[in-house]
């Protein structure tokens, strides 16, 4: 059975505990940042930052919304990065959970190609050329604990469990949220193990919120072995 996250952005308050909990558990160093005219920081995912809450101010239908999107690796069902790497000692799928795991052996591979293959623009290169990203807190999960980001989330925005349970939860929340937000949708739910629920156009949350975002560089898509389906088809197929 694979595991999945369900991230309900309608409940996210951008408290960013998930960002810190991730660093805390993984003993990741802080980055030197500066205020760039936004609360969002660091500016991007990095070798030392696997989780990042994107914060966007948008006026939609005359109403101001502050959209929050806790970004992380989607642990794709058919992960392009894994196929691109082609080395099971460097990138592999954990059989028990479906987690896509990067190891120190990514060093020396063509990491730029691996990065380029990711439809969500997740992997990041370290100073010595190794790659890093969210590891689903596999040590925790294998020992019966929730991933650090999910455990710390106060509101229920972050959820984790058996894929079937998460899919059911995602569907149930979608149908509730749709009553007040007709545009509500799940992002790429069949293809990934990190399912987001959003209420607005995905690109408003973050450039790489969905795989088939139009802002997406065409070369990146070409690099994919399996093309993701267009947005209109994928968002609500679970219903």
């Amino acid at each position: 059975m694979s595991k999945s996250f369900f991230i309900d952005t309608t409940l996210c308050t951008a408290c960013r505990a998930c960002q810190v909990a991730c660093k805390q558990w993984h003993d990741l160093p802080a980055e030197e940042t500066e205020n760039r005219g936004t609360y969002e920081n660091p500016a991007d995912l990095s070798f030392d930052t696997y989780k990042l809450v994107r914060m966007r101010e948008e006026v939609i239908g005359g109403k101001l919304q502050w959209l929050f999107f806790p970004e992380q690796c989607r642990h794709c069902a058919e992960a392009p990065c894994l196929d691109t790497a082609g080395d099971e000692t460097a990138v592999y799928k954990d059989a028990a959970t479906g987690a896509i795991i990067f190891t120190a052996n990514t060093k020396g591979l063509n990491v730029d190609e691996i990065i380029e293959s990711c439809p969500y623009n997740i992997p990041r290169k370290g100073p010595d050329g190794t790659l890093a990203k969210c590891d689903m807190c596999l040590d925790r999960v294998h020992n019966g604990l929730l991933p650090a980001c999910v455990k710390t989330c106060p509101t229920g925005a972050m959820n984790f469990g058996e894929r079937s349970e998460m899919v059911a939860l995602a569907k149930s929340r979608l149908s509730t949220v749709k009553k007040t937000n007709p545009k509500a949708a799940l992002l790429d739910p069949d293809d990934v193990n990190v399912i987001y629920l959003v209420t607005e156009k995905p690109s408003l949350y973050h450039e790489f919120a969905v795989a088939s975002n139009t802002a997406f560089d065409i070369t990146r898509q070409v690099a994919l072995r399996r093309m993701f389906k267009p947005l209109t088809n994928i968002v609500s197929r679970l219903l």
Partner: protein
Amino acid sequence: MKVTRREFIQVTGATAAGLAVSGLGFDLKPVKAHAQMLKTKYAKETTTICCYCAVGCGAIVHTSKRGDGRVINIEGDPDHVINRGSLCSKGASLKQLTENENRLTEPMYRAPYSKEWKQVSWDWALSKIAKRVKETRDATFKVKNKKGQVVNRTEGIVSVGSSALDNEECWIYQALMRSLGLVYVEHQARI
């Protein structure tokens, strides 16, 4: 104290130790033969209440039983009825508050007109403070006010703080200050 692990386990159906290599910097030979152990497995577990805001969230502190005996991990206490395992960004960083190289670890003294701190011993610092307290108090102490009423106070010493103290510390702190005759005793609730 007794803290059991009873509900620390949250995800159902997990196996004890899987084949996982997370993060980086590990020696990966052989890659999948390394059954990863939780870093908290052999640590001492104690419960605490977060020291930031007044929601009063519970957290579990994992302290190494070996070596320097320092904190390995602090995360939300799932058995705490208020926060049920969750913590905010500040709470999630509790470990870094304690294990922090910026912390003060020695009493320091700055002499009048000096440009720098000097490290001193506790005994030296507290003896000198006691001496200063007595000098100032005795020089400024008023047994009676202008109306001739008994007031037994000093307005020459002021103390502010502290909602950062435990209840028990608060009580002995205010008792000591009031016994000295301080009336200027104030704290965070005023600001």
